């Protein structure tokens, strides 16, 4: 008899995920207006580790391009992609709905309104903060509204509350835009997402939230598997389904809000990546979540590479790149998913 192998993160897949991140990292840093040899880039990246000193053959200006310009942007892409995919995978598990994405509970509408306000009131410097505050407020409002709906804190009432909050915030945002037509272009560009960096500033903004989200969501990934049998049965297995769900949603929303605050609204990453992972490496959240984190990071860093090189010296909004690949995929999932349970 074959030995029993429970669903776990397989080392092969873990290695593939880490490999994808490294490839995206080196390619993202090497390619651009000035193309640098990948070997030299890899050497310079290793040199960032204290105690390592490899000859790379690059001059000071090229090293500055790596450490001051490209690396922060690639790292930001990795972090944003990791957060959106991890949150997406987590939302899909919590809601037992393969089409849930991290924007479901109002993160997008809240961040959009916050960003619009910052731009309209000429306070661009606090835009990330405003977007983050808007996203966080929206999720909290959704949660309170969903809970107020009754004793049955079902996923459906939460999702409906999310729809209501999103519509409400979008209405305010539209009104603000109508009153400040001159800002439409700037707001629009933010809505499509961009990974513009100013040194390491954005990375340091996002990093603490990304760490909290990653630790909490990955620690609870087995509970997501238990939640997949529904609240009643999960409770009979000794879980607090509502409590687990609330912690997971809070952590995932925090990561998504922080990512959106520095990158704008980048669509579909949170849906595409967890689904690809699910198809390739199996349906257990114990492998879906860590692999979504890694492949999501690599995917967004590569999408950003495409966004800034395809029409160089111009730049495509990264949301355009992810949606161009994401929308057809979304339709495919809709058509092949056997069950959409809310």
């Amino acid at each position: 008899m074959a030995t029993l192998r429970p669903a776990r993160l397989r080392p092969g897949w873990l290695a593939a995920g880490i490999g994808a991140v490294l490839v995206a990292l080196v390619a993202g840093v090497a390619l651009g207006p000035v193309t640098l040899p990948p070997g030299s880039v890899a050497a310079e990246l290793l040199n960032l580790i204290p105690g390592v000193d490899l000859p790379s053959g690059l001059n000071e200006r090229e090293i500055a391009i790596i450490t001051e310009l490209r690396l922060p942007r690639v790292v930001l892409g990795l972090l944003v992609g990791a957060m959106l995919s991890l949150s997406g995978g987590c939302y899909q598990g919590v809601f037992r709905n393969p089409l849930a994405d991290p924007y479901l509970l109002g993160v997008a509408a809240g961040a959009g309104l916050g960003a619009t306000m910052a731009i309209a009131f000429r306070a661009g410097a606090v835009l990330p903060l405003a977007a983050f505050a808007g996203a966080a407020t929206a999720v909290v409002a959704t949660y309170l509204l969903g809970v107020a709906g009754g004793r049955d804190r079902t996923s459906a009432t939460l999702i409906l509350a999310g729809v209501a909050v999103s519509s409400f915030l979008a209405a305010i945002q539209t009104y603000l835009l109508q009153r400040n037509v001159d800002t439409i272009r700037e707001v629009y560009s933010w809505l499509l997402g961009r990974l513009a960096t100013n040194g390491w500033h954005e990375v340091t903004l996002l990093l603490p939230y990304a760490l909290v989200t990653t630790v909490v969501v990955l620690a609870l990934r087995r509970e997501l598997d238990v939640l997949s049998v529904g609240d009643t049965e999960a409770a009979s297995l000794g879980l607090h389904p509502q409590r687990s769900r609330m912690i997971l949603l809070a952590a995932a929303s925090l990561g998504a809000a922080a990512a959106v605050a520095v990158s704008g609204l980048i669509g579909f990453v949170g849906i595409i990546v967890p689904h690809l992972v699910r198809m390739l490496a199996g349906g257990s959240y114990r492998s879906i979540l860590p692999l979504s984190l890694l492949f999501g990071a690599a995917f967004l860093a590569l999408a950003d590479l495409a966004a800034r090189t395809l029409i160089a010296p111009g730049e495509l909004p990264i949301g355009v790149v992810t949606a161009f690949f994401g929308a057809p995929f979304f339709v495919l999932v809709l058509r092949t998913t056997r069950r959409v349970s809310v």
Partner: protein
Amino acid sequence: MLAVEGVRVTLGDAEVLHGVDLTVASGEWVTVIGPNGAGKSTLLRAVGGAVPCQGRIIIDGTPTSALPRRRRAQLVATVAQQPVVPPGMRVLDYVLLGRTPYIAPLGRESAQDLSIVEQVLDSLELRRFTGRELETLSGGERQRVFLARALAQGAPLLLLDEPTSALDIGHQQEVLELVDRLRQERALTVLATMHDLSVAGEYADRLVLLAEGRVAADGPPEQVLTEELLALHYRARVRVIAGEFGPIVVPVRLS
């Protein structure tokens, strides 16, 4: 093993159970019968802790209100009427979920958990299905897998809510014989609900007839499955025939 004392359950605005008393001795099989809406499933869910209730439910001498959830899950295992079938989940991983009450919140299953699951899978002849997705199994196979998850919980009290309602007559008998065998092998106590009265009587040591949220009759199958009681509470005309393992209830046309 189990004592239910004056249990009342309110769902929405309506009180569904109006003070139910019930005991199940260790190793006994008690089946709750009753017409639709009598509160059978609600009673089971109250015992399993899935719905809040007033009154007392005592398991192994401890009121369940004093039991932490994980401890309760180590004592009571439930097979729901229509268990959720998680898309894409393999049989092995599904049965392993039964070990959840023993796995630390941030931990993973131990070698012991795996060997317990392995033993349950062998005993239910499910070994060859371990790598299959639960969705791809037939109704009878699935019911065995649901049962396997509950057994993996290692709980002495097993709650079965309509365990055979989705099965054909042959698979019904197969599953109930299996439960009976496991009850003896593992010294389990069984509290079930069932619709088929003859089958209920053949397998249970005792029947509890629930009607409109109250216990209408409680005793050995011969005392509960009588033409008078069934006419009164089910508004059904039946003939009761003595059978080898208990009364056989046959519906008879009214006019």
